[in-house]
């Protein structure tokens, strides 16, 4: 069943023209990106700089642009970075250890706090892994609701990204703040929709093993249509606001990513798509209700921060279209395959393991669970896209200026809650 497309399609790419590609293992990779030098992240700073002329600058863990508590130790020559060493773990909460201690039912609200910008995605990923362990078939209505929620969440997440990226390149006391305030106004609409659906604005706990906890309330679809239509028109405004010479000067050619390196590091999502790799798990390995809808994957070939901005903005439009399309086709029926859980130890999968990955706003969000037959997982590994995106930093920072590092950090869009878990 494919629901017809009736809403606006994403804008065509701005930067037209043939891009020369080369064949790497069967994939077409933009040629100019394969020419990039790959800096040595293990550079021995003591032998590089025996007289200690470089300035070691600790950016973070309290710094306005590290988006949380990332600490990056930069070795600067003037303002040019020679080596960058990220230090993680300032937000490490031991979620994987907690997963071993909690039952399957109790885990969902815990993982909400991982990627605190798109909690829906965390819930979806972990519950899909549990369902794969249990071999439960989720009813179509629940799948549709999940997919619509995921797409609204993607819009909200990209909106937040756009605002904070504005703060990074434009300053908290300046144009960036204006952009931030505006994107937050629209993000608020998305949160209102979720509040309407689940009763919570942020940590929803709406997915459960086998289906959803909350059914669509009366009139929710109308609210979604109104809000998303509103946001779609506002996205045009952001484009008009952001696409000025200064923004382009600050983002074009900044933080150019080699797609092969990105793949080796496990980076995907908008970052990989901005580097010319046409890969989206929603289309290439459909889950939930994504096989019911046509998905256009925006791809850019420049690989820089501006390309990532373009990809994310177009993805926002595409997500709005997908959500609206799916919303029209939500089938009737139950929203959960399992009966409501009475006790936390009700769910007991057979020994085995499962890996399920979904396309979160930041890339492949996976969950790897090993069950030993008890009510708690034996081992639960969350594969956060942000951790892999943050691993790009030692490769991107060398050779660029502090301002560019900030813009690059912003364009990678990693969430520290997810990096550290």
């Amino acid at each position, binding site marked *: 069943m494919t629901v017809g497309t009736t809403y606006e399609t994403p804008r065509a790419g701005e930067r037209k023209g043939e891009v020369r590609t080369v064949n790497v*293992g069967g*994939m077409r990779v933009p040629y100019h990106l394969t020419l990039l030098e790959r800096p040595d992240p293990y550079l021995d700073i003591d032998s590089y700089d025996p007289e200690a002329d470089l300035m070691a600058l600790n950016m973070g863990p309290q710094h306005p642009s590290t988006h949380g508590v990332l600490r990056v130790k930069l070795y600067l020559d003037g303002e040019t970075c020679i080596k960058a060493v990220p230090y993680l*773990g300032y937000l490490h909460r031991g979620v994987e250890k907690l997963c071993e*201690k909690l039952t399957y039912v109790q885990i969902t609200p815990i993982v909400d706090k991982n990627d605190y910008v798109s909690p829906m995605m965390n819930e979806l990923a972990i519950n899909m892994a549990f369902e794969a362990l249990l071999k439960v078939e989720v009813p179509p209505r629940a799948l549709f609701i999940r997919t619509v929620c995921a797409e609204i969440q993607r819009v909200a997440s990209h909106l937040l990204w756009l605002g904070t990226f504005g703060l990074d390149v434009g300053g908290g006391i300046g144009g960036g703040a204006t952009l931030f305030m505006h994107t937050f106004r629209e993000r608020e609409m998305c949160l209102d929709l979720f509040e309407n659906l689940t009763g919570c604005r942020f940590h929803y706990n709406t997915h459960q093993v086998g289906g959803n906890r909350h059914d669509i309330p009366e009139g929710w679809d109308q609210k979604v249509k109104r809000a998303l239509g509103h946001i779609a028109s506002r996205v045009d405004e952001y484009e008009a606001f952001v696409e000025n010479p200064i923004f382009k000067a600050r983002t074009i050619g900044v933080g150019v990513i080699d797609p092969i390196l990105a793949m080796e590091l496990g980076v995907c999502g908008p970052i990989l798509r901005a580097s010319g790799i046409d890969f989206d798990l929603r289309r290439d390995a459909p889950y939930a209700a994504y096989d019911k809808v046509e998905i256009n994957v925006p791809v850019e070939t420049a690989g820089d921060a501006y390309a990532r901005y373009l990809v994310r903005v177009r993805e926002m439009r595409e997500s709005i279209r997908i959500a609206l399309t799916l919303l029209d086709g939500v089938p009737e029926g139950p929203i959960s395959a399992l009966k409501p859980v009475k006790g936390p130890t009700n769910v007991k999968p057979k020994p085995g393991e499962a*890996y399920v*990955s979904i396309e979160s706003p930041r890339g492949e969000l996976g969950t790897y669970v090993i069950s030993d037959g008890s009510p708690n997982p034996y*081992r639960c590994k969350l594969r956060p896209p942000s951790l892999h995106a943050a691993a790009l930093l030692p490769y991107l920072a060398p050779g660029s200026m502090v301002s560019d590092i900030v813009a690059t950090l912003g364009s990678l869009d990693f969430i520290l809650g997810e990096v550290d878990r």
Partner: protein
Amino acid sequence: MAFSEDIVRLCERFGLTELPDEGPVVERKDVVAFAHALKDELGFFFFVYCVATHYPADEKTEQPDRTLVTYRVRRLPIPGVRPTETFPFRLWVPTGDTTPSLTSVWAGADWQEREQFDLVGTVFEGHPDLRRLMMPEDWPGHPLRREYAIETQHFPWR
């Protein structure tokens, strides 16, 4: 879920005939060559994860204290040729022993292996920068080992 033909053929070359869904168990001495073959011949460029799971000594099955290290890699779709596919492979590492690092094959193995070293205590041999990733440098113990209960006597949990 069965694996593609070329993967099966590659596994046969390395003497892996059993291919369960969880992935074949690779010998530790072969793993770097196997990984290189996966990446260079079959196009598994995308590094998904590296997970170490601790299995304490079991009297019933008479297994020693050991760690299961699972890698999973992905190849991206080529339109009209093949869909995207992930391939896991695993190795058993007895506690106190080391396992070769795959950082030289996939750069992404770097942080993942550091994380597993940090949390589970698996030592990856040949890793260029094997430091703790999440926990403080002077943290006692490895939190994701089974004996590291939350009711542990280790310092912050006391």
